[in-house]
């Protein structure tokens, strides 16, 4: 094998295809552009995505990396997997969206108006600290991004949940937290914030 082959950089579809994908790879190149994914997507069919999933796949195949990463599509995927179970070519489209989320976080190339990336990072940080998730921290970190009316509604709902005993006052914590943190550090070098 020549050095040239070894040094060959993967094109965008090669990168996306091989983003671990539960250790099997994803056959994005076999897409026939039938549009079943877009038609099945509750977010795209409501008109809330800048590009439909079908279009995103087409853009990946055309090596249009910047345009793909700038799209809000993958951050607006609710991971309902309707596209995945219906794709006639067996492409796991929801996992492809997850892969793009990870890719865009590593490269910090997502749209700055999106809440998804920082929400994900806050969520994971919370788990790293205590081993369990804690709704009040997650929700309140994002309240300020809502409009006034949404903010008031959310606060009213939270109050009602609190009155019904459905909101935790203190975060839960696992017992073997030190072991847990060492375990996590074996996988990813997380810094605690």
């Amino acid at each position: 094998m020549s050095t040239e082959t070894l040094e060959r950089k993967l094109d965008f579809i090669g990168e996306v295809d091989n983003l671990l994908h539960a250790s099997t790879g994803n056959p994005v190149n076999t897409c026939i552009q039938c549009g079943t994914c877009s038609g099945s997507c509750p977010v795209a069919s409501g008109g809330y995505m800048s590009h439909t999933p079908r279009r995103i796949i087409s853009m990946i195949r055309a090596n249009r990396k910047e345009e793909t990463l700038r799209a809000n599509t993958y951050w607006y995927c609710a991971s309902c997997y309707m596209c995945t179970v219906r794709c006639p070519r067996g492409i796991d489209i929801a996992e492809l969206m997850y892969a793009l989320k990870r890719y865009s976080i590593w490269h910090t190339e997502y749209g700055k108006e999106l809440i998804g990336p920082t929400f994900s990072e806050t969520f994971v940080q919370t788990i790293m600290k205590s081993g369990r998730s804690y709704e009040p921290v997650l929700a309140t970190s994002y309240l300020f991004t809502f409009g006034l009316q949404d903010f008031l509604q959310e606060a009213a709902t939270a109050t009602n949940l609190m009155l019904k005993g459905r909101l935790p006052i203190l975060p839960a914590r696992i017992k073997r937290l030190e072991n847990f943190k060492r375990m996590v550090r074996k996988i990813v070098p997380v810094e605690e914030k």
Partner: protein
Amino acid sequence: MTRKYAYFPGCSLEKMARSYHESALAASRALDIELEEIEDWNCCGATTYFNIDELLADTLCGRNLAIAEQSGHDVVMACSGCYKNMYSARKHLVRDADLKEHVNEALAEDNLKFTGSSEARHLLDVMVKDVGLEEIKQRVQRPLTGLKVATYYGCQIVRPRKDHEDVESPHFFEDLMVAIGAEPTNFLMKLRCCSAALLITNRTAALSMVRNVLDSAVRSGADLIVTACPLCQVNLECYQTQVNSDFGTDFKVPVMYFTQLVGLALGVPRGKLGIGSELVNVSPALAGVGEGGR
């Protein structure tokens, strides 16, 4: 015959969906299902670890699976999100020896080892398949006759495909409801997404998705929506006020857990099923159902 399982409640069932936890335990007990909570479990990752790191996601579920394996039983989840994550992580780890080795190296930090000996199951599936509809029917003390229910599957309990099950028109949820005497409605959006975490990350899209599901349930003539997932319950119940003010609708439909309805039919008192902690009052829909009922 008592059936034993390891039980993974998940973070939502600790507080936000406490009534699901209580009713899962009570209804299971009434069916001779013994659920033993696994010790010191951690968060399954919801729909969010995968956004950051897939290997980490599999490791965190791997830890729960390894703890559950020590019991010698299959592990049962009531939350569909936890179920999907635990099921998928187990599948990845069983299929890929290298991945398993890598994850086990990390698990060794907590003196644990994943082998794959325990299957990951959903409680609804355990009731339908392991206990069986016939046995459930025989144990019913107060059939929920006349109660019209919209069986809301949502996503993760059926998707992604776990085995060879019907993902386009499943009916196991309706079958369970029929077994306890309730009447499932023709609920067209029973498999449509509740919007999950989009309520935080894309509110406009999320509220319209919640509206669509509520609308479909109400149009089907249901007295209430029944779910098998705490996130679906919260999204469909707690955001009705918001949906009503945004879309000029008038939704006031109760959203209950299947374990609460199963419990009622088996004669478990309402107090043991966490009934009363809802934001949308369930009493009118349940008038005459269950204890002292029809």
